[in-house]
Every structure is written in structure tokens, then in C-alpha cells.
């Protein structure tokens, strides 16, 4: 789960990191009220993606009316596929300098990496590409976190030696997001040093590991419903499916992530455009197939569905029966091609044919068939 800025800041604040005064506003009136309390503010779109500034999602307000207008413009805006649900009105800081500090998972090292750079406020990936020497790195021991002397070295490496004490304090607090919240990314960019010498989080990014959601039900309850994602993904999550929305018209179901991704590739290669990724896992039980089909059929863009199932331990005839039942229960009218292989594949294909479902011999043939049928449907 990627937290919104104000949510991430609330978490950082609970860890003892200073944040600017701010208020959440769901309506233009609330933004005007925030101005009355805080004075001049930045009105910031709350979306779980970067680049909101460039998209017009951050506006400065010097009067209550400006705050109201800014909120009116920003709330409901679409930023990279996310509808802005609310804005965060925050007091502007008296900035002396901006620093980057963040933890993230370094896959190649199978470890967390702490990055520190004097070039704050910029996209860190861009800094990494253009001037990698400007970023100091540390892989802290995952059992005890970063030690003082390691942070001293890091601060001097980043040419921020004069700030070693306040930086070490902030970094140690930020590190708590990893053991306490299963953070995969915990980033402050910029970490602002004000003209009066205070060190304050100007922005915050926090991504919590979905695999650890069971440990952080409180966060999900408090924040989970605020993030308005894609409606099909929301519904799929409710039904316990692994589902990702894409923008094409061929619905795709596969068992296993790799097989499902492979099916996406084949549909695209056959000239179609996948509407989604949906992995129903091993087994391919009738109930799960039905849930997956139900979510895919909610999308009016979908012109056809291809199911690619490999039956390993599950028998193909059982999978076929399940698919037929799911289709019938949902009164599905759109073209459906099923590619079934593995154990008892012949019996499975016979059952499909008997019930008017096109069985694909291999995945490539199935992909071509669904693209052809969906195309015909689109023309009709």
C-alpha cells in the first residue's frame, strides 16, 4: 500500500520527525478554513504517484479565496489515472537548503539501502543517473539498523558533514518505519533545513509491504479507503483476486503470474490489447474463475475473454467444468476462448467443446482466436 503524503507525514510525525503544520481538505470550503487557521499555504493534490507538481496538482494560496479556487481545481483532477480525493493544505517553509534522504529495497543486494544526497527536491532517479557520486549509500544491518558511526560516514560522504547530528537523528527515526511498519520505501524529499536551522520533512513517501498487511490492519483501516484507485482493481481486491487493470479490450485470466504475463504478451503479439492481468493461482477452482470473470465483465470495454490454464495437480476436466459453470452463472455472452493443458487435457477440451466454448490447442492459437473473435464482435 502506498500512503498519501499527509498519511505518510502522520506516520513520520508519530516516529518523532518534524512536519510542517497542515490540514486535510475534502472541499473548497475546508481549504478556505485551512487558510484561516494556517495562513498562506501550498494546496497539494493527494495521490499515490509522483509528478503531481508538473501535472498542476500543487498550487500556492496567499488568500482564502485562492485556497478555495485551488482546491476546486485540484480535487477530482486525474493525475496518472488517480482521481484526486482530497488536498493537503500545508504551511510553506522558509527553506535554506533541501536534502534527499530515503530507504528502499535494493533487490540486487537483497538488502535495504539508505540513500542520502545534498541534491534534495529533485527526482532521485534522475540524480542517480546524471551524478551518481552525489548520492551516498549505506546498507544497514537489517537486525539493528544504522549505527552512529555509519551515519557519520554517510553524512560526510554526501558532503553534509556539518549537519551530521540532526541528520543522524532524523535518519534513525525514519528507519523505524522499516521494522515498525514493514516499509519498502520510506523517503523524505526534500528534507528541508529552514533558515532558522530546523530540519523538517517537506514531502514524504511511504510504501507498506502488502505481504505484511495482516500486521498493519490499523493503517489499512485508517487510510485504505481514502486512496481511490481503479474501480475494477478495488472490486477484484474485495473478491481476493490478483488483478491489474490495463487499457485494452481483451480480458485475460491465467493460473500463475508467469503464465498470465505470457498470455498478455501473446494477445498483444496477435494484435489485441489486454484489458487486464488476472492471476487465479494454482487449482483454478470454479468459484475463483467465476469471481475473475465477474470482475472482467464489469468493464464495458471488454470484447472477449481468454482463459489460459495449465492443470498440474488439478485435473483438466474439473477445470473445464468449473469454467462452464462460471460462464453459465454469469450469463456471459461475449466470446470466450479457453486454452487448457496439462493433466486430462483431452477430457477437458471435450467438455468445453460440448458447451460451445472454443478450446485453444496452444496459448498462441488461443490468443489469435480471441483477438479474431473480439474483433468480429467489435465490428458487429
Amino acid at each position: 500500500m502506498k500512503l498519501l503524503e499527509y498519511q505518510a507525514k502522520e506516520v513520520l510525525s508519530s516516529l518523532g520527525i518534524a512536519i510542517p503544520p497542515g490540514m486535510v481538505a475534502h472541499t473548497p470550503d475546508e481549504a478556505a478554513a485551512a487558510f484561516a487557521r494556517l495562513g498562506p499555504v501550498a494546496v497539494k493534490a493527494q495521490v499515490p504517484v509522483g509528478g503531481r507538481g508538473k501535472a498542476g496538482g500543487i498550487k500556492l494560496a496567499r488568500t482564502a479565496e485562492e485556497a478555495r479556487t485551488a482546491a476546486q481545481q485540484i480535487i477530482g483532477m486525474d493525475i496518472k489515472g488517480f482521481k484526486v480525493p482530497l488536498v493537503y493544505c500545508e504551511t510553506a517553509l522558509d527553506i535554506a537548503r533541501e536534502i534527499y534522504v530515503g530507504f528502499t529495497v535494493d533487490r540486487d543486494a537483497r538488502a535495504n539501502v539508505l540513500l542520502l544526497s545534498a541534491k534534495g527536491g529533485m527526482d532521485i532517479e534522475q540524480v542517480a543517473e546524471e551524478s551518481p557520486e552525489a548520492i551516498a549509500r549505506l546498507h544497514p544491518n537489517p537486525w539493528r539498523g544504522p549505527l552512529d558511526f555509519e551515519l557519520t560516514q554517510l553524512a560526510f560522504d554526501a558532503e553534509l558533514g556539518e549537519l551530521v547530528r540532526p541528520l543522524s537523528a532524523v535518519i534513525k527515526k525514519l528507519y523505524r518505519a522499516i521494522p515498525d511498519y514493514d516499509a519498502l520505501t520510506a523517503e523524505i524529499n526534500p528534507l528541508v533545513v529552514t533558515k532558522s536551522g530546523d530540519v523538517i520533512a517537506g514531502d514524504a513517501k511511504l510504501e507498506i509491504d502488502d505481504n505484511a498487511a495482516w500486521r498493519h490492519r490499523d493503517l489499512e483501516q485508517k487510510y485504505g479507503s481514502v486512496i481511490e484507485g481503479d474501480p475494477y482493481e478495488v472490486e477484484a481486491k474485495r473478491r481476493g483476486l490478483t488483478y491489474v487493470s490495463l487499457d485494452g479490450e481483451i480480458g485475460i485470466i491465467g493460473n500463475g503470474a508467469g503464465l498470465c504475463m505470457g498470455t498478455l504478451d501473446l494477445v498483444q503479439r496477435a494484435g489485441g490489447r489486454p484489458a487486464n492481468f488476472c492471476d487465479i493461482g494454482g487449482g483454478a477452482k470454479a468459484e475463483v474463475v467465476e469471481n475473475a470473470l465477474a470482475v472482467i465483465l464489469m468493464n464495458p470495454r471488454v470484447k472477449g475473454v481468454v482463459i489460459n490454464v495449465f492443470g498440474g495437480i488439478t485435473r483438466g476436466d474439473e477445470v473445464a467444468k468449473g469454467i462452464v459453470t462460471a460462464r453459465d452463472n454469469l450469463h456471459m455472452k461475449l466470446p470466450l476462448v479457453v486454452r487448457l493443458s496439462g493433466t486430462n487435457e483431452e477430457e477437458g477440451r471435450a467438455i468445453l467443446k460440448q458447451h460451445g466454448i472454443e478450446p485453444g490447442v496452444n496459448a498462441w492459437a488461443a490468443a489469435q482466436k480471441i483477438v479474431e473473435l473480439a474483433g468480429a464482435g467489435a465490428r458487429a
Partner: protein
Amino acid sequence: MSILLDASTKVIVQGITGREGSFHTEQMQELGTNVVGGTSPGKGGTTHLGVPVFNTVADAVKATGATASGIFVPAPFAADAIMEAAAGGITLIVCITEGIPIQEMIRVKDFLRGYPQARLLGANCPGLLVPGQAKIGIIPQRITMPGHIGLVSRSGTLTYEVASALSASGMGQSTIVGIGGDPVLGLTFGDVVQLFEKDPETTHLVLIGEIGGSDEEHAAELIARGSRLKTVAFISGRTAPEGKRMGHAGAIISGNRGTAKSKEEAFKRAGVAVAETTDDIVGLLQ
């Protein structure tokens, strides 16, 4: 011959009395795997599926001399189970469990540095299988046949699909290894490729990768330095968009890293044939 496992390897199952553990232990026994026991805290002293159950891995290893373990315990307990296996003296740890928090796996990886003799496969993987001999994990045996092709993959069902196609064409396998789809895992493509290089029975290699990370690129670099194996690679997810997690926690493209294109190009540079679809793999091996 095979890599990592054969019919004589003494195997225990952690979580042997659970539903998944029981079902797959029976499947493992059916193939001929030398399952010598299992663990389930509190059930030590009992017998399950014809083998003794122990409270802990240390007890099981002491009594049976087991060197390998398959882990089928639920995600909240799996990281501890891996560390218990390593500390108990197990040298091949196969963790099937899906959904272990990444921070726990990072701590596990650090812990395992203290046990250099312990190899971890997974987590979130289908395990490994030596056709006609033994398996640890959930790969269905009936789609496999003994032979000389080494198969290593990040994905479960895609592995089954390719193994099945190979067997149907009369191309048997020496060992099938599923390394798993998590971003922080045990054995990598590179590790497994090196093991296959040293196995005289393996003449060909099929490598099935997917988007995300750079393990495929590292394996390609290893192969480029010299390989005796005729290798075919396939990468799934070439049309996946950036920033969308495709089922496996590890299958995500960020920036220009981890794309199918960079992986395919790395293999081509190493002189490895790259299959456009899984159906092309059999033809490219001939």
C-alpha cells in the same frame, strides 16, 4: 545425475501435518523422495504419512540425519522456519510458502550469511524436481521425464507448461528448479546456472525469466564468460507496463531497469537463443 537433490537425499517437511504439507508430502513420497520425517511443534513423537514427526528441525536432523527440508508453513511463520532449518544443520532449504514480508526475507538473507553451507530455494517457489527420482515442493511429476535438459524458472505454471512441452517432444529433464517470484529470494538464476554447468548429465539449459530485477542479466553475463550448455531463454512480461506489479511481487518494471528488452538483449549478447513464445522453446533446443 542431477543438481541439489537425488533419490538418496534425506528430506524432512516443515509443517508436515498441515493440509498443504500433508498433500504434497504424499506426492513427494509417490515419486520416490526419501522423506525421513517432518516437524510440527507439539506433535513430536507421533507418526504421520509413515514417517516420524518432530517438534523442531534440530530434533529431526539429530534423529534422521536429514540434509534437505521443504517448508509448507503459513507465511507469518515461514521466515522463522527458514532460519530454524539453517541453524538446525539443513543444507538445502526449499521454501514453498507465498507471501512472506520482504523485510523478514531481508533479515533471513542476513542470517543465512552465518550458515554458508545452507542453500535456500525460494521463497514463493514451486521447488525442485529430479524426474523419476525425487522432488521437494509442488511441481507435478507426471509432466516430467528423465533426461538432459536443465530447467530453471521464476514462475510456477510457466515451468510446468515448458516441462510438459519438453516431455511431450521426448526431451527429458535432468533437474527442474523454480527459484520463485519474490524480489528477495535465495538461489538466483546465476547460482543455478553454475550448478548445471558442473552437472555432467545436463547438456541443455532452458531459462524462463520474467520482468523485474536484474538476475536474468547477471545469469546472461555468467553464460557469456563461457558455457558448455546449449541454452534457450524466454522472458515473460514483455508487454507489461511500467510500475504495475504483475502478480509476483518481483515482477515490476521501474524506470529502465528490469524490462524484458534488457533481459533479452543480455541473453542475445551471451549467444543464448531467445524464444519469442514458450511454444518456440522446443524447436530452439534442437
